[in-house]
């Protein structure tokens, strides 16, 4: 009796241990995004269904854009091949759920970082890839150099957003008066402005540049340098996969650091031969940082070779080489007038 009980207990314990071990292994495996991406042979990247400069599919299904290039950079670091990405277009409403449900490995979809989202969805925002914020567009003939000169303006904006509150706060705190006209659709806002119904449009700066292209004479309008709200856009990953968070974060930092070090896709071969310690650590001719991240020595060099540094990606998609022509502004490097700042490798 005693013996039977003992052996029964032993078997029971063994089964319990086995089940726990299996579950633990499975969770470990399931939570290991890098391993899953490797096994799959491609990265699943959640992007916007279509947003000028950030994420755009063409008729053949080729994706381009600032957010798109970031996923290509991750693929370059892992596979040495920026094409090993499957882009998954996601609506604003479903994006965080799709990420949490493991439909995508990373979300690179113009998403504003805030605490409420990190808490509510069990997510981490990896690093601010683009500092957006609310700004103003006015007619060039107005000769305004600052938003502080907009006292007495007729301002148009889209309803149902935080735009209205930011606008009111800004004008009130600077002792300025304005008349407001709002519309449900952004197109109508732009139409009203173009027809002279208002003399200022306010929206996120990246939006203003996109909307300016729709005006009858885009050159006759300027977007002021002032940014009055915080909309830091960042790639997003799931909680509880530190290695993956690290990889996504440092992919972005690599692009910024390359710009700061003067490393571009066109001089990367020259950089591989550099004897400057900072450059050597970056390209992997010194140190084992790549291996320690479970990548290769040249992980960062791969990113730059295939995709380019931050400035290249910015100018190609959003800046001077794109129809949008958004000046770097806040997104300039910290030592060149902006606030983009990446920690160093060592």
């Amino acid at each position, binding site marked *: 009796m005693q013996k039977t009980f003992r052996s029964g207990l032993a078997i029971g314990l063994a089964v319990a241990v086995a089940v726990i071990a299996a579950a633990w292994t499975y969770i470990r495996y399931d939570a290991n995004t890098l391993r899953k991406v490797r096994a799959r042979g491609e990265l699943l990247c959640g992007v916007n269904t279509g947003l000028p400069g950030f994420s755009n599919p063409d008729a053949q299904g080729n994706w381009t854009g600032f957010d798109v290039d970031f996923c290509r950079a991750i693929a370059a670091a892992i596979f040495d091949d920026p094409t090993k990405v499957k882009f998954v277009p996601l609506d604003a409403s479903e994006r965080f759920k799709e990420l949490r449900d493991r439909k995508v490995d990373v979300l690179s979809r113009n998403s504003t970082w805030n605490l409420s989202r990190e808490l509510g969805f069990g997510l981490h925002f990896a690093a601010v890839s683009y500092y957006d914020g609310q700004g103003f567009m006015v007619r060039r003939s107005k000769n305004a*150099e*600052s938003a502080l000169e907009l006292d007495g303006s007729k301002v148009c904006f889209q309803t149902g957003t935080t735009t209205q509150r930011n606008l009111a706060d800004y004008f009130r705190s600077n002792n300025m008066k304005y008349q407001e006209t709002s519309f449900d659709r952004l197109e109508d806002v732009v139409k009203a402005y173009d027809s002279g119904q208002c003399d200022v449009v306010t929206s996120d700066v990246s939006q203003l540049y996109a909307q300016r292209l729709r005006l009858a004479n885009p*050159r006759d309008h*300027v977007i*002021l*340098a*002032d*940014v009055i709200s915080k909309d830091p856009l960042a790639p997003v990953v799931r909680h509880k996969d530190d290695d993956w968070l690290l990889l996504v974060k440092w992919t972005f930092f690599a692009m910024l650091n390359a710009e*700061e*070090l*003067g*490393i*571009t896709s*066109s*001089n990367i071969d*020259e*950089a591989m031969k*550099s004897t*400057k310690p900072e*450059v050597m650590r970056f390209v992997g001719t010194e140190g084992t940082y790549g291996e320690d991240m479970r990548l290769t020595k040249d992980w960062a060099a791969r990113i730059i070779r295939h995709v380019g540094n931050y*400035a*290249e990606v910015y*100018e190609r998609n959003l*800046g*001077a*080489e794109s129809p949008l*022509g958004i*000046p770097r*502004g*806040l997104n*300039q490097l910290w030592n*060149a*007038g*902006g*606030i983009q700042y990446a920690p160093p490798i060592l």
Partner: protein
Amino acid sequence: MIKSGRGLLALAACIAILTLTHAPASAERDFTELEDQPGFVPSEVDEQLPPQFQRQMVLYRTTEPPGTIIVHTSERFLYLVQGNGRAMRYGIGVGREGFQWQGLLKITRKQEWPDWTPPSEMIARQPYLPRFMAGGPGNPMGARALYLGTTVYRIHGTNQPHTIGSAVSSGCFRLVNNDVIDLFERVPVGTKVVVRQRPEL
């Protein structure tokens, strides 16, 4: 302040053989004319720059005080710091060689419609150039010149607006005439000029 030798030789003049090199893709522009065109007077249409090189107020954070000029050679921009996180930005053409240093200079002299005396090194390369050209429209030095320290470097205008955005001259920083006139009005003699280069690999 300036390393002599190669630099001084190479710059010899602010305006020299116009050879396009090493402009970043974003700033690179086509060249129809590759050399100086003394006597050429650009039209208003010629002086219309691409949007990114047009004079504009931009967000710019710096520890330098308002009134300081900061030149980012690799980006082809000149910033005049306004304070309060902003700066007036001008598109520029920069030196192909000779201006490989970075550091601090002061504006020591301001000149309207400067004369042009191409130095002998330039005459050797471009024998057809005039030995002297009085200041005025059509002068490659453009409408205004700001002299930098005791060097031969200058911030000046140009009669070739299409060279803005490129690395063409042997030395100086060039702006379209409208812009150099605007800058000239805004800065006094004694203004600090900070020059920044892309880091070396």
